[in-house]
């Protein structure tokens, strides 16, 4: 039972961390609970489907189907997070002002929210399909304590997610969306770096240098903290050159996007409001 709980916990935790960052980043947006819940539901459904077709995926594209599938899922998530982050750099200020003034939910950004729903779904799908395959094996092998193990694992993983979420809520509203936006940027960069690693594993990309540094003496990839930071900011104790390049490209592209978008809206709103200074300053690019 504990073996089952442990594996389920690890996979749920990985998905929960991503869901948590998304949940924090959409704070104050109306109906976001539905979007996140819907994303998780779709992800679970997708996980079962992916597990069912795991054999077909595995043998596709002369045996590199799994790597291509994972890389595509990850790149899709990167694009969607990127879009949201850039969108937020023009709307984050508005959102925070609204929340401060009204104290309630903001009716905005349905399209950007749909993208984040997809990010949640993809995260759950990726980790969930591993759980499904694992449980399938356990059922076939006649393991006992399946349901209890599953329940403990899900409860444990989600608890850590909730703790992180409530921790994030303690960030003052003034800096809140700046902080969550940066978390999304690093999340996206880390996912892109993981995608690169899959393509290297399939020999579709060159490594451009193996083990550029080795910080496993400090924090190993296998440790719980190492794994959490791997998801949250793309930490890797022994990264390859190509991973660093993918990471840097995403960070730089999103920073440029946020800066350009933020500047354009600032100019537009300044024109509209005269020189009236806003009571709170939320600068996603700061």
């Amino acid at each position: 039972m504990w073996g089952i709980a442990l594996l389920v916990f690890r996979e749920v935790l990985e998905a929960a961390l991503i869901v948590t960052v998304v949940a924090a980043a959409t704070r104050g947006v109306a109906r976001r609970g539905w979007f996140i819940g819907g994303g998780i539901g779709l992800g679970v459904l997708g996980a079962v489907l992916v597990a069912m077709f795991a054999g077909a995926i595995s043998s596709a594209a002369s045996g590199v189907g799994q790597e291509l599938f994972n890389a595509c899922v990850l790149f899709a998530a990167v694009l969607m997070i990127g879009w949201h982050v850039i969108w937020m750099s023009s709307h984050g200020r508005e959102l925070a002002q609204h929340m401060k003034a009204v104290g309630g939910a903001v009716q905005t950004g349905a399209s950007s929210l749909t993208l984040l729903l997809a990010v949640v779904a993809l995260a759950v799908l990726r980790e969930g399909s591993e759980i499904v395959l694992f449980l399938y094996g356990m059922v076939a092998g006649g393991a006992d304590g399946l349901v209890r193990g599953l329940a403990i694992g899900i409860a444990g993983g989600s608890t850590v997610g909730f703790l992180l979420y409530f921790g994030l809520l303690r960030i003052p509203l003034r800096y809140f969306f700046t902080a969550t936006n940066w978390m999304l940027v690093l999340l996206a960069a880390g996912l892109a770096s993981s995608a690169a690693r899959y393509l290297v594993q399939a020999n579709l990309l060159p490594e451009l240098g193996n083990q550029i540094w080795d910080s496993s003496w400090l924090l190993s990839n296998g440790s719980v903290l190492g794994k959490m930071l791997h998801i949250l900011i793309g930490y890797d104790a022994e990264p390859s050159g190509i991973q660093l390049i993918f990471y840097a490209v995403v960070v730089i592209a999103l920073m440029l996007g946020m800066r350009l978008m933020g500047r354009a809206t600032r100019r537009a709103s300044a024109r509209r409001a005269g020189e009236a200074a806003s009571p709170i300053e939320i600068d996603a690019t700061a």
Partner: protein
Amino acid sequence: MKRFFLAVLFALPTAVLATDVPMYTLTIKNHRYEPTTLKVPADTQIKITVVNKDSTPEEFESTDFRREKIVMPNGSITVFVGPLKAGQYKFFGDFHQDTAQGVLIAE
């Protein structure tokens, strides 16, 4: 970047076929690796085939050399590894970590 990625995708079959790297095989049976120790040349890219002779899925994984790939029941997969610096690198079966353990020695 997207275009670059597409180009990579189209170059895929040739990239896979064109490789001529040392190959090694690991077999999973009763949730154990055979052999449990695999000696490979350091600073050389290698190819590892993992054959799963069990009737349950397994995930070939290493956090040391950062590889993970599901191996379906009675199926096999191939991953490219390295070039690795000389040293020991653990690998395991993610779904049966209590038994499926092994080590890759690059020298």
